[in-house]
């Protein structure tokens, strides 16, 4: 297999920007019209994603062992999109047609190498998908509560119709019929409960199709689809260090779940939660957090505002406020929120002497369509 030739060939297609993925999808939909229904109306973001993912695969094509876990995750994750084994050869044929179309020097050798490589990739993905076949490809979950807390934040209570296992701090991809085929990641704000209820915090992003629909169009009785959970902030099982949790805006959700986890499962430990918002008006979950503080003597919650001159709460960026209450050198620390806030808070904590390995963080980007092949949640 001539890997440099394959890379050069791929680079030629990738250099056309949107042209190659556009050609690929049109070719796929014309030769296999049944695949069109797997994709959203607008394909713009999808096209970016396809070649990014392919590029990642090409970059590692000579190291199958490094590639395997990524492909397995991709294969499992594609089940929720409705992908079946029969789709793989269809995709392969259109991919080959695309690579040929954009390369003047296409050779039968290239065709053979690509076919081999693709077959291998498809086999790994199909195998992983089939190995996961005993769990559902997606779970239906009914919205049983929809509470508008502020002008753009809603707290949803959803109940999966079948058993849905996840850990506090994980993210769940979800889709609504109102915005078909657009999957977004949200973190449940509670640890798994005996009755299966999950609390989902959603902020309507300006112009965001899914978040605005979840906040303003979805109501009690609507049904969402959930994909399998993926891990992010997870507490170290063997540690009973006291916790410091730092939330910016909607980053509160996974951290509230961690508090709930400590309340349900232990081990007993002090938990100090800091939640930063721009203004006092935007603190959308205050009554429930205050209820938790009343119920749990080991918990403190400190609110801070960064752009509210007349609020009686603590002022300043949340990272700054946290440090004022320090030192936190002995704590296990989780930080979740917008990228700027997470970077700022983590770097302040590290500068104050907290060892990096005891800080875990999750960035909440405005749109979180899905994890990349590296398993990172992307913008």
């Amino acid at each position, binding site marked *: 297999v001539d890997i440099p030739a394959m890379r050069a060939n791929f680079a030629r297609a990738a250099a056309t920007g949107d042209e190659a993925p*556009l*050609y690929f*999808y*049109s*070719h796929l*939909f*014309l*030769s*296999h019209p049944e695949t069109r229904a797997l994709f959203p*109306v*607008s*394909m*713009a973001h999808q096209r970016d994603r396809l070649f990014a993912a392919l590029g990642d695969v090409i970059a590692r094509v000579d190291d199958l062992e490094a590639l395997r876990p990524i492909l397995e995750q991709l294969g499992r994750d594609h089940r929720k999109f409705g992908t079946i084994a029969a789709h793989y050869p269809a995709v392969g*044929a259109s991919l080959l*047609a695309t690579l040929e179309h954009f390369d003047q020097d296409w050779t039968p050798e290239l065709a053979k190498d690509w076919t081999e490589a693709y077959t291998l990739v498809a086999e790994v993905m199909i195998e992983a998908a089939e190995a996961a076949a005993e769990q559902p490809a997606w779970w239906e979950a009914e919205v049983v509560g*929809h*509470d*508008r*807390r502020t*002008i*753009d934040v*809603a707290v949803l209570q959803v109940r999966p119709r079948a058993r849905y296992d996840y850990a506090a701090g994980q993210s769940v991809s979800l889709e609504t*019929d*109102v*915005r*078909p085929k657009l999957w977004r990641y949200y973190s449940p704000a509670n640890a798994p409960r005996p009755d299966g209820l999950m609390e989902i915090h959603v902020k*309507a992003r*300006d*112009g*965001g*199709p899914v978040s*605005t*629909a979840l*906040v*303003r*169009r*979805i*109501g*009690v009785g*609507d049904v969402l689809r959930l994909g399998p959970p993926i891990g992010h902030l997870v507490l170290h099982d063997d540690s009973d260090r006291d916790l410091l949790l730092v939330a910016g805006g909607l980053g509160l959700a996974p951290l509230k779940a961690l508090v709930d986890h400590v309340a349900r499962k232990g081990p007993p430990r002090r938990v100090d939660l800091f939640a930063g918002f721009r*203004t*006092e*008006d935007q603190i959308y979950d205050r009554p429930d957090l205050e209820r938790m503080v009343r119920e749990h003597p080991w918990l403190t919650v400190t609110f801070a505002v960064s752009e509210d*001159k*007349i609020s009686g709460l603590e002022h300043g960026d949340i990272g700054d406020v946290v440090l004022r209450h320090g030192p936190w050198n002995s704590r296990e620390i989780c930080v979740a929120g917008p990228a700027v806030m997470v970077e700022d808070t983590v770097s302040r904590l590290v500068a104050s002497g907290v060892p990096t390995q005891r800080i875990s963080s999750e960035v909440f980007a405005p749109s979180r369509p899905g994890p990349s092949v590296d398993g990172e949640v992307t913008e």
Partner: protein
Amino acid sequence: MTTDQSPAESPAPPAERGLTPADLHNVRFTRASMMRPGYVDTEVDRVLARVAEELGRLYAEKAALRDEVRSLRAQVDGIVVPEAPSEQAVRILSSAQQTADNYVAEAEEFSRQVTHDARVEYEEMTREARETAGAILQAAQEAAAKIGPSATPGSERGLEEVEEQVAYLKAFGQAVRTQLRSYLEALLTDVETEWGKADPAVLPVARPPAQRSAGTTTFEANTVEEPADGAAEAVPAATGARRSG
């Protein structure tokens, strides 16, 4: 025993012709005799034997055909690739998709801008209202404190007036908030409809807007029940409002 078509050959038609359903329908057995009622049993046995033989032959033939189908289908799967779409078709679909993508992107961008502008306006107005109300409150409290120590009948009346004014201002602030909020909601609903137009597949489902919870809104230190939408035209009378905390 006779059959209609071939009485002469009955009951042994040529083997290669096989036994047809019609043959069986048309079988007529001879009555045995007055002494032994029923059909002649040799005839019946002969027909049964032939039916069994025919059935066996059909089963074998069916199995052979099934194998043939399977091998043919395997060949077909291996060979037949759906005809590659023409370059022209790919181009047409590509440009159609791009047009659709552009419309959706424009709708999203429009929605983003309108929502953003509305939010900025809302936040600015809320902030101003809060600051104004805060300043007035503070002035009122300072005035009340000044009057407080020397409590004469006249100053008590003054205190009462100040309290009344404070309560009125709080209610006024709340009403402004509520009006702003419903104005913004209406704007957002418009935006939502525009988005729907860009994605007609999801439009036909007429659904009521997401339920608003009857929550409470915090205004300064006071907690005031949020009035229902539309009930905010008139500033509530000051007398009913609670004391500030």
